[in-house]
């Protein structure tokens, strides 16, 4: 049977996390920033499932953490999109640089 080292999976998820972080830093479009956050959440999910499989294969805790992260991500996306729509209605733009009223 084939065996893949745990570190390979961790490298994949780390690379995904930092691709998402780069996107969060560089994009100014709110929708794309939200997509970058989803990417980061998914890389963390891979970590949970991989650690569950490799270190405690008889338990299910990592899988349940991932399921709860997915539910929280769904709720978060719904609220964030409501905020974005509201911002678009008042500013006619979803560029984060345009929403500066609360800047000091």
């Amino acid at each position, binding site marked *: 049977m*084939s065996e893949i*080292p745990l570190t390979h999976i961790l490298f994949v998820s780390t690379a995904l996390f930092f691709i998402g972080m780069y996107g969060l830093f560089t994009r100014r479009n709110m929708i794309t920033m939200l997509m970058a956050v989803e990417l980061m959440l998914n890389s963390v999910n*891979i970590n949970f499932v991989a650690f569950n*499989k*490799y270190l405690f294969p008889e338990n*299910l805790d990592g899988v349940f953490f*991932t399921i709860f992260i997915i539910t929280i991500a769904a709720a978060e996306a*719904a609220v964030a999109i409501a905020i974005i729509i509201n911002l678009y209605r008042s500013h006619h733009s979803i560029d984060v640089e345009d929403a500066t009223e609360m800047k000091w």
Partner: protein
Amino acid sequence: MSTSEILFWFLSVLALFSAIMVLVSKNPIHSVLWLIVVFFAISGHYLLLNAQFLAIVNIIVYAGAIMVLFLFVIMLMNLNKETEPSRNIWMKFSGVISGGLLLWIFVSATRSAGEIVGKTAMIKEGSIGLIENLGKVLFTQYALPFEISSVLFLSAMVGAVVIGKKQ
């Protein structure tokens, strides 16, 4: 190389390539479509790590629900390449530097963690991730977080409606 190794490498390359394409493509609709490819690749990884139920949930919730919501909003706001704000080159540069440095730290921390280096497991073996086993644990050990997440959904729904409605 066995089949599951080939699958693992294929899925990893697919996930990383599409994640880069999410950020490279200027059109937000293309970003969403590439992100759906990333979610399918991640679901393939879950299948290899025998979390079968999680793979299906990932496809249904992310690719089916969240990404459709994103597509609706992008089309509602009529976003396209022209409305994409121009990016500052210094912002990009600092993003590469900070992201790259943190990536370096994470990778070297992973490489030097003695407990996990060389840890291998039988990929795509076992049935612990099937829905029967998950359901038993979910409704006994994880019953309280399960109920609390329903309260979270209710409050998120109320919040989204209150924020989204016209004043």
